[in-house]
């Protein structure tokens, strides 16, 4: 049976839950060098941030970037893709609900607020 858009939204929500519960650990990584938009290759963007995590043998990468068309739309964009062992992207999730929330969860995980508070309390 084909994967539906609802399945993709559910998958992103599940990844978010795994991230929040620390069952999926993300590490900073190199952002994708180029981004395609409207069929044109676009250059690297300033402020682009990427994180990767390994889940069931697949390398997931999430990226936050500002679109080249920032003059029209200043909002941040997000991509979530699956990479092969060579680091090239083999599947990019379509722009579905929840990817920006997943990125926030990854950032929160990297801040390790719980560890920070525990350290403050024990010291």
């Amino acid at each position, binding site marked *: 049976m084909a994967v539906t*858009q*609802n399945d993709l*939204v*559910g998958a*992103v*929500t599940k990844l*978010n*839950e795994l991230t*929040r519960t620390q069952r999926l650990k993300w590490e900073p990584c190199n952002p994708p060098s180029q981004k395609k938009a409207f069929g044109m290759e676009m250059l690297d963007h300033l402020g682009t941030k990427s994180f990767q995590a390994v889940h069931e043998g697949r390398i997931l990468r999430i990226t936050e970037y500002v679109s080249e068309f920032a003059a029209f739309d200043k909002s941040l964009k997000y991509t979530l893709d699956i990479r092969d062992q060579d680091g090239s992207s083999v599947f990019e999730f379509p722009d*579905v*609900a*929840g990817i*920006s*929330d997943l990125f*926030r*969860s990854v950032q*929160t995980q990297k801040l390790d*607020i*719980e560890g920070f508070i525990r350290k403050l309390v024990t010291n």
Partner: protein
Amino acid sequence: MQGTTLANFSAWASLVSLALTLVNTILILRIKSGIVVNLTLEPLFDRLRQRSGEMNQFLAYYEVNGARFSEVAGICEADIRALRRRLGYVRSRFLRSHVHAARKFRRDRSAANAQEVYASLQQVRQHIANMLEERRITG
């Protein structure tokens, strides 16, 4: 004889005009609700995106943020119920899972139920995003 024919004709004419009035009323109400949905859908979508972000943040440390999550979930539910009313019974079917999850959460404010509310909200957001996209294409 002629008088009876005229009486019959006028009786039928009044029935037809009554039917036309009813059809017109239904059409006017549909157009009115369509305008309301068109004008409110995008701001509602933005609000849901913002609430979703807040819920996600509160879910990260649910033990300490449970009350704040409930507050945001309540506001969100009110927005979803308003949308349900505007869309009507058939077109609002996609909201049922969220309404059901919110009801379950009201009964038992556990982290699992809170996660269910958040997950169903993502499906709602995606459905509204698709609706907005279709409206942009068709005008």
